[in-house]
């Protein structure tokens, strides 16, 4: 996962996808120094990592961020809750030593 994301080019690509609209390879190539081939290669890496997915719009392939879980509010809270559990375990260890 980290290797899929730990690359400036791929991160910039992801940033473009953050607004939620599926974008074509041409769109994602525009305004960069990359070839269409390079962009495609990077998208494949992101796809394999499960971060991005390909959707067909007519005859065109477009890419978008992999959708978040359906109930994102509850999932987010669960996630924050787990982070608190981990932090509190550290607090406990610190004060009880």
């Amino acid at each position: 996962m980290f290797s899929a994301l730990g690359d400036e080019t791929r991160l910039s690509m992801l940033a473009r996808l953050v607004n939620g609209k599926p974008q074509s390879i041409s769109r994602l190539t525009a305004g960069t120094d990359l070839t269409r081939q390079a962009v495609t290669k990077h998208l494949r890496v992101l796809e394999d990592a499960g971060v991005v997915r390909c959707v067909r719009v007519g005859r065109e392939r477009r890419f978008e961020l992999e959708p978040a879980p359906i109930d994102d509010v509850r999932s987010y809270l669960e996630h924050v809750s787990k982070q608190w559990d981990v932090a509190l375990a550290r607090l406990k260890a610190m004060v009880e030593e």
Partner: protein
Amino acid sequence: MTDRIEKTIELKAPVSRVWRALTDYQEFGSWFRVRLEGPFVPGQVSRGYITHPGYEHVRWEAIVQKMEPERLFSFTWHPYSVDPNEDFSAEPSTLIEFTLEKTAHGTLLRIVESGFDQLPSKRRDLAFRMNERGWSAQLVNIAHHVEHAP
């Protein structure tokens, strides 16, 4: 209830020890995983950087609310605020409240984090997905710029 998280934990340590771990900015930083610039002062902004692995460039900013010695410590903060120029006072924040109670064996610590309903869903969604997939801190910066670019 989708607006808050509540945790209680019994600590085998005196209330004064727990209070110090919460309100001494260096002790707080060591378990919360943030490196703070200075002490907590009610009404003032507390700034620093997250030291959690993978998020080392993420700024941490909170406004200290109450410090009632050995009873209550609270602050508001903005999850994933990363832009130093951002006027975060305009953005919704979550409120974190620590309350302490003496027990037979030590201290009962209660933590309530509330205000999640106010977080813009896009920010919350992105923040969640970033954590779930272990995205690097760089993405936080980039995504934030994109979100705010006209």
